[in-house]
């Protein structure tokens, strides 16, 4: 087994894992703070990818430049979605089931709107710098994955900084840890939920752009992405950004190693089965609270 090949595979895996990590962090955020299982989370990642794509193809705007803009846009969209769709559900008796149903509806709507507007042909983001690759020793690493990974890491770091070093962020954490207590100390739970959901969707969008630099995307690809989101959130622990991030890298590593030895399909089976096993012995997740 060629070492170079293995190393390339592992690195590819880890880079991809980092992007999945960003995608999952937002999902875990809404689960943790509001008990909302947002099945449509990955759909907004796809939306983000499309926005960046059109900005690039029609407007010539480099994805790296359009990302902050679309993050903001999606933050607003997330807030609107929260107000209109999610908030009523949080008042229901069974928020978990209710949120699954409503987000499923949302996913259908958004996916089909995208499909109708932009057609289900696969697309990919290919700014010119992704055509070249990085050469380390004998390894070849595509620039696309590297930049996507960098984007994801920066976004995760920003999220982490927000949660731990800003007042609002700490309010979000407080709500997460103890909803009743948070309200009692004067935290406006509704506003916190609004911000949290907005951030969640925004981060999904950024993850989508990062993903689009590596792989082609189409409206229904969110289904595949969602499975990884579930995986990572549960194993990484719903309570932890660092945990989810590290899990992403770990999963990426495992994927990379397995991909070097097994046909791709078996990698997935192994991964999911492994994760089910972990769940059975440690339901809180490896890093969970």
């Amino acid at each position, binding site marked *: 087994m060629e070492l170079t090949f293995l190393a390339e595979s592992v690195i590819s895996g880890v880079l991809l894992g980092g992007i999945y990590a960003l995608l999952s962090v937002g999902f875990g955020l809404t*689960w943790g703070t509001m*008990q909302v*299982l947002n*099945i449509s989370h990955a759909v907004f990642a796809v939306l983000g990818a499309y926005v960046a794509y059109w900005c690039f193809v029609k407007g010539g705007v480099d994805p790296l430049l359009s990302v902050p803009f679309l993050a903001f846009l999606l933050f607003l969209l997330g807030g609107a979605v929260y107000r*209109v*769709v999610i908030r*009523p*559900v949080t*008042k*229901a*008796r*069974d928020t*978990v*089931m*209710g949120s*699954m*149903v*409503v987000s*499923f*509806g*949302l*996913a*259908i*709507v958004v996916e*089909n*709107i995208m499909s*109708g507007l932009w057609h289900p042909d696969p697309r990919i983001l290919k700014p010119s710098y992704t055509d070249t690759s990085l050469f380390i020793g004998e390894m070849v690493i595509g620039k696309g994955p590297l930049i996507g990974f960098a984007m994801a890491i920066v976004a995760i770091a920003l999220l982490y900084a927000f949660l731990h070093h800003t007042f609002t962020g700490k309010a979000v954490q407080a709500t997460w840890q103890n909803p009743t207590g948070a309200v009692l100390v004067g935290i406006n739970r509704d506003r916190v939920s609004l911000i949290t959901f907005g951030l969640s969707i925004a981060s999904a969008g950024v993850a989508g752009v990062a993903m689009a630099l590596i792989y082609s995307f189409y409206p229904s690809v969110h*289904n595949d992405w969602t*499975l990884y989101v*579930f*995986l990572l959130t*549960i194993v990484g622990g719903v309570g932890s950004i660092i945990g989810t991030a590290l899990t992403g890298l770990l999963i990426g590593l495992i994927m990379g190693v397995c991909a070097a030895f097994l046909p791709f*399909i*078996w990698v*997935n*089976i192994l991964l*999911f*089965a492994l*994760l*089910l096993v972990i*769940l*059975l012995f440690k*339901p809180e997740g490896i890093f969970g609270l």
Partner: protein
Amino acid sequence: MRDSILELSTEAPRPRVNTSRAGLIAVICLILLASLPLFRPPLFFLSLLISIFLFVSLTESWNLMGGYAGYISLGHVVFFSIGAYTTAVGMNVFGASPFLTAVPGGIIAGAVAAIVGYPVLRLKGAYFSISSLLMAVIFQLVFLNWTFVGGSTGLWYKLMPVSIGANRAIFYEVMLGIALLTTLVVRHVERSKFGAGLITLREDEDVARTIGINTAWLKLKAFILGSFFAGLAGGIYGYYLSFIQPDITFNINTSLLILMMAFFGGCMTWTGPLLGAVLLSLTNQLIVTFIGAEISRILYGLILILLMIFMPNGIVEFLRARRSPR
């Protein structure tokens, strides 16, 4: 005379229904439904009803775990598929008619449920739901790569040597029978000691244990029973489709549809899944017929969202709240 633990109350906060009259209406409806093919309705109508019968079976059987025990499984399709694949393999490899192998299909589904359920049922709430989803994904991936069952190419059933009309009618009656059987069994469970235990489990699992309920075993029983009926339905429905393939049978959309039907119809009693399956299927069909297939998906999604916003606890709860102001 109703005997279920849920009916012990004299001032039950549930709608009073004249039992014998309701029973009579039900029997009349059943007779009408069963004799429908004799009137030679348009084939697509029979098809619609067949799919409704399927969803009634799936949602009712799902509700044992989902509604009564409160364990929301997103993997019910797995058992449906196992039933289908059992009859398909039975036909292709052993030449056996699916009408004979459907019950064994259900039994195999039940067996798989026992094996998978034993560890997975130890999880709670959202963790259980997501694990059940992961289980479904694993099964789908395995079946996609398993050449014996056709892998990604799928399996074909041999068609019955009868006309399309007769073919449709036969499946109609059989699926009606399965839907009826499933519903009756679930209704029986609801009124029995088994049902009382499941509901207690949902309310407070710790308390359930302190009053002597073997929660692990009860959950497993419900899981196995529900899976059996899903497998049974799958065994026949696969034959009806005459072609099965992992992407079709293990589709997570089906799981989500079941969830929605139970949710909107009401998951607390046996009438809920029935109502939900009928309502949502008809709604979908109406949209597709009158508005067009492309926009139908978007509209369906929108309706779901709207329903959730205005009736976050399901239709039945909504109606009850409107009827009896507290």
